[in-house]
């Protein structure tokens, strides 16, 4: 039996997904038994041109992690798509935008200004990175920093998704098994159980029948009882809105779930649904009471969209830029 050809690549990501693969530990050896890794910048020395030289569809499966922020990342994604039979969006960034996705809260302009012109550590040489720089020796080029962060499937067609930040070892192993065994589910599926966190939460038994939260606490504001349901203790745990399959490591570390693995397939917009659920857990009636309770939730948008802003139905609406929008539209 011929080994299948696999590629691993990162786009706008942190390398955690690479680590996740390395952390297959001894399993990794079995993988390389059955898989020829033809591209993996983090660990192997193949270059882009090696991929370009391949025929279309030559790679059986590409595991692509990271969101898409630069023109270069877009090109790489497109390249791998063309060369691959299957593309698997690997990890939260590729799946939903991930942490870098929060870049969509602000405009690209803002980000560049902040990093290169306003940051307190700068020497104020008023320089910003350019797509093309004419140097004595010739032109040096940089990829374009795009207007917004995109998920992988907003850039190229994606066949499967491995969720999580990083994807849990268990899910990776199952995915590989399915892949090698040719037992993949319907195209477009997320390769994880389609049910929410609470289902496998180690503290499920301690859930109260009803939630009547009177005060939202931040994790450092009170001691979290290591046995009881974290949400019931008034700490904003996104478990109910979040897919399971990660074996709840954060909760095991006595911290609330922050939703890195994303919503289950039923949910169209993680943030909006989280709003529905969170606002259903307390029962003030007077407007000012409600406001007061909500004031305890710092930065709601950043909380519910932390790992999935680019995947939001709202995608992006830059603050205070409505005028600009109108002009654009008109």
């Amino acid at each position, binding site marked *: 039996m011929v080994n299948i050809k696999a590629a691993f690549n990162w786009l*706008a*990501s*942190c*390398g*955690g*997904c*690479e*680590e*996740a693969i*390395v*952390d297959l*530990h*001894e399993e990794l*050896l079995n993988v390389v038994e059955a898989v020829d890794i033809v591209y993996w*910048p*983090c*660990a*192997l*020395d*193949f*270059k*882009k041109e090696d991929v370009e030289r391949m025929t279309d569809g030559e790679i059986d499966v590409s595991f692509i992690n990271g969101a898409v*922020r*630069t023109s270069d990342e877009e090109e790489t994604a497109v390249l791998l798509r063309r060369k691959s039979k299957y593309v698997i969006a690997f990890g939260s960034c590729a799946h939903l935008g*991930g942490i*870098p996705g*929060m*870049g969509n809260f*602000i405009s690209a302009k*803002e*980000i560049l200004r*902040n990093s*290169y012109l306003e*940051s307190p*550590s*700068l*020497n104020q*040489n008023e*320089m*910003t*990175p350019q797509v093309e720089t004419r*140097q004595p*020796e*010739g032109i040096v080029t*940089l*990829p374009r920093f795009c207007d917004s962060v995109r998920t992988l499937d907003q850039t190229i067609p994606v066949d499967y998704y491995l969720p999580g930040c*990083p994807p849990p070892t268990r899910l990776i192993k199952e995915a590989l098994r399915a892949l090698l065994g040719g037992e993949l589910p319907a195209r477009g599926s997320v390769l994880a159980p389609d049910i929410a966190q609470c289902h496998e939460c180690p503290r499920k038994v301690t859930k109260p029948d009803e939630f009547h939260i009177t005060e939202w606490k931040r*994790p*450092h504001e009170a001691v*979290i009882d*290591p046995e009881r349901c974290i949400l019931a203790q008034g700490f904003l745990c996104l478990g109910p809105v979040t897919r399971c399959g990660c074996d709840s*490591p*954060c909760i095991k*570390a*006595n*911290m609330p779930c*922050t939703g890195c693995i994303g919503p289950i397939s039923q949910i169209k917009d993680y943030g909006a649904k989280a709003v529905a659920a969170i606002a259903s857990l307390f029962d003030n009636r007077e407007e000012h009471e409600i406001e007061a309770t909500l004031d305890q939730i710092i*930065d709601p948008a*950043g*909380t519910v969209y932390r790992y999935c802003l680019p995947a939001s139905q709202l995608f992006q609406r830059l603050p205070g830029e409505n005028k600009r929008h109108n002009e654009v539209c008109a």
Partner: protein
Amino acid sequence: MNRKIVIDPITRLEGHGKIDIFLNNEGDVDRAYFQVPELRGFEKFAQGRPSEDMPQITSRICGVCPTAHHMAATKALDDLYQVKPPSATKKLRELMYCLFFIEDHALHFYFLGGPDFVVGPDAPKTQRNILGVIGQAGLEVGKKVIGLRKEVRELMAYLGGKAIHPVMGLPGGVSKGIVEEDQPRFIDAADHAVEFSQMSLEIFHDVVLKNPRYVEWVTSETYTHKTYYMGMVDENNNVNFYEGRLRIVKPNGSEYCKFPPEKYLDYIAEHVEPWSYIKFCYLKEIGWKGFQEGMDSGVFAVAPLARLNAARGMAARSLRKRMTACFNSSVRNPFITL
């Protein structure tokens, strides 16, 4: 028009890199540009988020060394909330951090940097990687490497929830402790780690130091930068990974300055080049003098070697011997890539 060689991407390290090399008419390297073609904008989108989320947000800067960012942010929170963590907290964090750098250095040595030496620079690129290393050093070693990393990673997960992107850090504390019956696991791991690093040093000794070609190589001009070096040290100027002051030494090894991390803005500034998204740090007082080495340039180095250069030595006596074995008095910075 002079020729240009592009190396894209740079491989076997964390992060995105690209090198543009310009050759002159003689075909010699005229100038090379190491570029980082990547920007995500953490500085900006982190603004407006809850402070206590920083350890988890910033760890996403790098998933290979998330613990470093996580810990840095956590300590920043201590500072922000003006709390001094109790000793148990400090120990737990430090333990976590030690686990991390054992695992991380193992990774670097065997997966990323190591192959260049173990299988050698001339080996075909299909070989120049962990698999090649295993091929060379034998499956036994491979199993050891993997075994140790696994053990350590599991303990990291025990403390931090996730080994990659831990969640333990809180202002003035940690989210979880160790129950007594699990303590032996950590003690064992420590022993294994020491054992393992002994082994690694052996390998290093056999593969590198015993190979004159390598030694000549790495001590050659090409691989040497005479810059300032920065690293964290304890009150005895020994290396410390968790806390202490930042010490900067001159190219000749004498102390340039020493300051508490939170004062970094007084000592360090950043320079922007139009051809890379990365910003270049330099010593504020000396100023940006371009890509120059030497006393007069503000350029300084960090990371393992710099850390050793900036310190008087290692706190652990057992390591001092090893260190001197690597450092013969003539050169202070032999192994730039290590």
